[in-house]
């Protein structure tokens, strides 16, 4: 194994960064002093909380989703873009740039008319922005005024405004995409046609995080009412990964991606990078735990790279994309069964309940031992037992040979390739 110290330096659309960890445009990137503290803690870059015409916010603004006792496993907000004056924000951008010249500051923007775009872009670049991020994603408050996701949901509008920004900007332009669409690809392509240098995704997902069941009001509650918020945090990571990967594998796309959505640790970051992101943006985990979480992100990523022999982020970007396939190309003749390591088994039998009630009834209790028995002739290899098992590596999914050559549904449909007999389908 090579023992070279990997470089975490990366670049998204021409915006160079000492590491791939950026603060997303959000409360942790609201002010100069905050972002300076973040850079001191080790964050590579920061996307300044969206500038525009300052707004008035409500209280309360945030809602947490507690899942099996884990607070903030999902998170929602109904906060809008910056409520601070443009002058203050611009002055702090300049000051922060002066103190941290090597850390990119990407300024998020959201205004309405072409002249407003032109003006705020010039002001941001004058202040020291290394890049711009066009906020086409905010799903609440701004979209009702014809901005945010109202733009991101209309490819033609997206393309036109992106075109303005690119025309007026002398620094790279990233377009931040909304996930509140049925298919992300046309929206990424619209940004590309507009001339964007890269995209950031995902913004938050339209949501109602919970309901106050005593007051009969959704949350977060503002006096006696609430509204839809933007869902984020660990819980949204699978949706974000899918959208990032969908663009990354689109042959007509090809733009750099800054991945966002539930990045809470180095492992999440690695997943986003392997699916095509060259940087990742983090908000919720910082809101829940503070800037200090970046230390483990950096350490963990570096150790992962060392273990796998990567010396640069570029070597990792999109590494898993060739293996993100269509269902019709999956090998229907590939067969696995679950195996229980009796020495590791603690006899909780969660696998018995899960298999009997949630899968294919092939894991059975046995006499005289708490270790269950797997009927491999019935096991469909679904993974459920392995997922519920509380003991690491106690249940393994093991490939078994069935004598059938690999064959996908497409092979079967087009060439009549022979398929193995079904299991558990009686």
């Amino acid at each position, binding site marked *: 194994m090579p023992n070279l110290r990997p470089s975490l330096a990366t670049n998204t659309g021409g915006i160079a960064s000492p590491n791939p960890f950026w603060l997303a445009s959000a409360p942790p990137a609201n002010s100069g002093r905050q972002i300076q503290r973040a850079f001191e803690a080790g964050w590579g870059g920061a996307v300044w909380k969206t500038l525009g015409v300052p707004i008035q916010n409500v209280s309360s603004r945030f809602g947490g989703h507690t899942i099996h*006792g884990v607070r903030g496993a999902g998170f929602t907000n109904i906060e809008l873009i910056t409520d601070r004056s443009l002058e203050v924000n611009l002055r702090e951008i300049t000051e922060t740039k002066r103190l941290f010249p090597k850390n990119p500051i990407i300024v998020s923007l959201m205004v309405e008319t072409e002249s407003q775009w032109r003006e705020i872009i010039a002001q941001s670049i004058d202040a020291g922005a290394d890049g711009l991020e066009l906020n086409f994603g905010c799903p609440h408050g701004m979209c009702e005024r014809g901005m945010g996701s109202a733009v991101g949901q209309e490819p033609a509008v997206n393309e036109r405004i992106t075109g303005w920004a690119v025309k007026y900007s002398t620094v790279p332009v990233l377009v931040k995409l909304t996930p509140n669409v049925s298919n992300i690809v046309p929206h990424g392509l619209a940004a590309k046609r507009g001339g964007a240098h890269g995209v950031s995704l995902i913004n938050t997902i339209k949501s109602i995080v919970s309901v106050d069941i005593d007051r009969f009001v959704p949350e977060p509650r503002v006096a006696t009412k609430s509204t839809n918020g933007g869902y984020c945090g660990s819980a949204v990571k699978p949706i974000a990964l899918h959208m990032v990967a969908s663009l990354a594998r689109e042959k007509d796309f090809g733009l750099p991606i800054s991945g966002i959505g539930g990045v809470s640790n180095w492992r999440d970051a690695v997943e986003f990078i392997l699916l095509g992101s060259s940087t990742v943006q983090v908000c919720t985990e910082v809101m829940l735990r503070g800037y200090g979480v970046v230390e483990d992100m950096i350490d963990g990523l570096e150790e992962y790279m060392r273990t796998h022999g990567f010396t640069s982020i570029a070597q990792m970007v999109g590494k898993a994309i060739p293996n993100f396939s269509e269902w019709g190309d999956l090998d229907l003749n590939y067969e696995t069964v679950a195996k229980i390591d009796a020495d590791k088994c603690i006899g909780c039998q969660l696998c018995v309940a899960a298999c009997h009630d949630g899968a294919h009834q092939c894991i059975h209790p046995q006499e005289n031992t708490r270790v269950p028995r797997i009927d491999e002739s019935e096991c469909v290899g679904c993974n459920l037992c392995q997922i519920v098992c509380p003991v690491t590596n106690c249940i393994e999914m093991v490939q078994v040979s069935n004598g059938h050559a690999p064959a996908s549904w497409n092979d079967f449909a087009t060439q009549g390739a022979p398929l193995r007999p079904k299991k558990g389908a009686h």
Partner: protein
Amino acid sequence: MNAPLPTNRSETAFEDFKLPLLRDAAIVEANRCLFCHDAPCIKACPTAIDIPQFIRKIATDNIRGSAKTIFEANILGMSCARVCPVEVLCVGSCVYNDLEQPPIAIGRLQRFATDVAYEQGWKFFQAGADTGKRVALIGAGPASLAAAHELRRFGHACTIFEKRTTVGGLNSAGVAPYKMKADRAMNEVDWILSIGGIDVRTGITIGEHISLADLERDFDAVFIGVGLGVDSTLGAPGESLEGVHGAVEWIERMKLGMLDLSKIGRAMVIGGGNTALDAVRELRGLGVANVTMLYRGRREVMSGYVHELAAAQSEGVAVEWQSVATAFAGEGRVQRVSCLRLDDAKRPIAGSAFTLEADLVLMAIGQSKLNAMFAGFHGVEFDHGQIRVNHHGFTGRKGWYAGGDCTNDGKEVVNAAAEGKRAAHAIDAVLSGAHHHA
């Protein structure tokens, strides 16, 4: 019907050994539970509480549902949460032990749910429609209380006869105060009796105020839940000196009243069971500087729980293993105990005599049996001093059932609760004509 407790009692000096869980901590702990299938903890509970289910309900903040799950299985769930030796029951069987992670704090979670239920005054059970049948219960301890409550749910009228003035049996008068104090046990008695239709007559000794024949004549069934008798004695010289007491009797006085231990510098407890371990811990907790447990066997064979011994030793209790007391001496009251070492076959070792100073000696070597009470009462048979019952709690004499310490030689409160409930079901099956036990 319950004699009022003095507020100032020796036992009130104690704090809880296991602290209660606050709501947030309870929810965190509850969320650790794996919700095992066919869970080992349920099997380890004599009352078979659906533990994963009650814990899941705590995790979802459904505390009322949680408490109902507990009480449905064990009406003494509040006291059992405090006094059960969970280390050798539910908690000891938690699968986390095999994962070398802390097992779920089942007892503390049960205490949380049941304490909330008591605080909130939730009631879960109603008496059944009156059947016109009457059941007598002898003794007002956990076994009879569990039986009576269950019988009331079936609609049978209950009368409990208790020789003391205090109701609750050893739950009130015997439980180590760092687990539960008498006032809490009496809260539980009131809570159980609030189902209504349970007539408790205290100060009634069977064979003295009422005969067995009277009971048989006046009631459709009788449940015997009399517990054990007085502390056994060694029969050694000097045992009648002042300062030598039976441990159970001493513990009762400590729990229900105020003892003066100011002149006790050294105390000895003779025995190796859980009563002995309770007594040594109680003496230390009450400020006796030097407390020694004297046990005739080796550590490996003592009947007291290992976790209780460990706690006692960590609290500074000394143990003399394989030793017996042969005589007690002192001027006016006990001051010295003559002792001998025993070999592995429990034979005295020549030349091993030694003397220990003690201002107080408690005998925790067992309790007498109550055979005499039923002498000549055909069908109620004894086996090693314990009333013999089948797996329904039936004695063999038509209409007579038994459970608790008098049938199991002194197990836990939870065993008494299970046996009382079991007998109630058997009694109901017969009284309602559904089933005949013979």
